[in-house]
């Protein structure tokens, strides 16, 4: 790994000022960034740790929404949202392993937007709002394809607000070596309709399956999607699964998620 300067500010303003430098990059839990730096896929000159900023940490439960600070770990979300938003807590509690959950954060996961990551599916299906130091970005406008997001240079996520659905569930089929999703489906049922987001499957990263959303909004049952199919065109294909396999898997998991949501 190439060397870098390490700074740990205690306010968002200081962090934003340190990140104004082109060669500076935020460090949150480091569970993605450190491995990529070891591989020299990433070589920032300055790392700005966000974990010293108390304002970026913690969970707030409102009447019909929950707000999670960007530097809140997966373990904290798993523990503190178990009652307010159980599907989201369960998703967080199944990311990687206990050590990854004690360091990894929601802000890092959403900024990275790995095509097989779990949180992007939750944010998109819940219709979450990604709040940054500059603006509020609705999830529908935030995810821009594999590892791509609406975030600009020097812009950091400060918190994420999730509306709480009437019913929801996330089902992931784990790639056993990495524990990332080979495909994962988050289904969220609101009074005005159902949202379905699929991760791990498409070359474009997380996406909404509108056909399933329509079918489920009329009839919230696994049968409603059993006759549908996802187009394998544009699905990821690798040694773990072909495009056809992933398309089929995503459909099967959608049915399971609906059943789990009840």
């Amino acid at each position, binding site marked *: 790994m190439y060397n870098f300067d390490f700074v*740990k500010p205690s306010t968002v303003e200081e962090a934003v000022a340190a990140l104004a430098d082109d060669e500076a990059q935020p460090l949150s839990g480091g569970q993605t960034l450190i*491995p990529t730096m070891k591989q020299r896929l990433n070589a920032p000159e300055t790392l700005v740790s966000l974990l010293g900023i108390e304002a970026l940490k913690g969970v707030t439960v409102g009447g019909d929404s929950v707000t999670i600070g960007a530097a809140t770990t997966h*373990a904290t979300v798993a523990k503190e949202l178990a009652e307010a938003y159980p599907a989201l807590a369960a998703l967080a509690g199944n990311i990687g392993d*206990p050590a*990854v959950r004690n*360091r990894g954060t929601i802000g890092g996961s959403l900024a990275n937007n790995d095509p097989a990551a779990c949180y992007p599916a939750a944010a998109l299906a819940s219709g979450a709002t990604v709040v940054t130091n500059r603006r509020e970005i609705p999830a529908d406008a935030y995810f821009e394809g594999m590892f791509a997001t609406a975030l600009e240079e020097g812009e950091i996520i400060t918190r994420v607000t999730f509306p709480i659905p009437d019913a929801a569930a996330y089902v992931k089929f784990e790639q056993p070596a990495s524990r990332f999703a080979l495909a994962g489906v988050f289904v969220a049922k609101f009074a005005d309709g159902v949202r379905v987001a699929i991760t791990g499957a498409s070359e474009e990263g997380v996406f909404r399956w509108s056909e399933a959303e329509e079918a489920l909004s009329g009839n919230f049952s696994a049968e409603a999607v059993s006759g549908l199919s996802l187009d394998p065109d544009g699905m990821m294909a690798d040694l773990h699964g072909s495009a056809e396999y992933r398309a089929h898997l995503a459909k099967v998991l959608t049915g399971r998620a609906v059943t789990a949501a009840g």
Partner: protein
Amino acid sequence: MKVTMHVNGRQVSGEAEGRTLLSAFLREELGLTGTHIGCDTSQCGACTVHVDGKQVKSCTMFAAEAEGAEITTIEGMANADGSLSAIQQAFQDYHGLQCGFCTPGMVMAAAALLEEIPQPTEAQIRHHLDGNICRCTGYHNIVKAIQAASGQPVAVAAE
């Protein structure tokens, strides 16, 4: 830069670069080689230590991030009189190790689990060990050791 932390109850300082990993700092700067590096890619868990009471992979955290933190490594697990802790003794009694390379990480993971869930089920133990790889034992005896250490009956008694 100079980094200061509490390791196994003692305040220690050492030199680190920005890129110095906590695992390297513990092993090379402090000479605490009980923390093993199996993969250096966040996969195997051999480097597991506790930072402020939480289990983390020390190969996936910079030493500078541990400034001021309380760190516990395998060297801090034995009882005050030097005898093995209940978890360590159970690993010996139930043959929870063969080559022993993964064992420091397994013991640290087990200790974190029992702190959170004093009497875990077999499924909870296996779920908790998701990030700790053992190439020797096939895990069964590790699970038994943790069940035994938590004071629960174990299916097959030790010989």
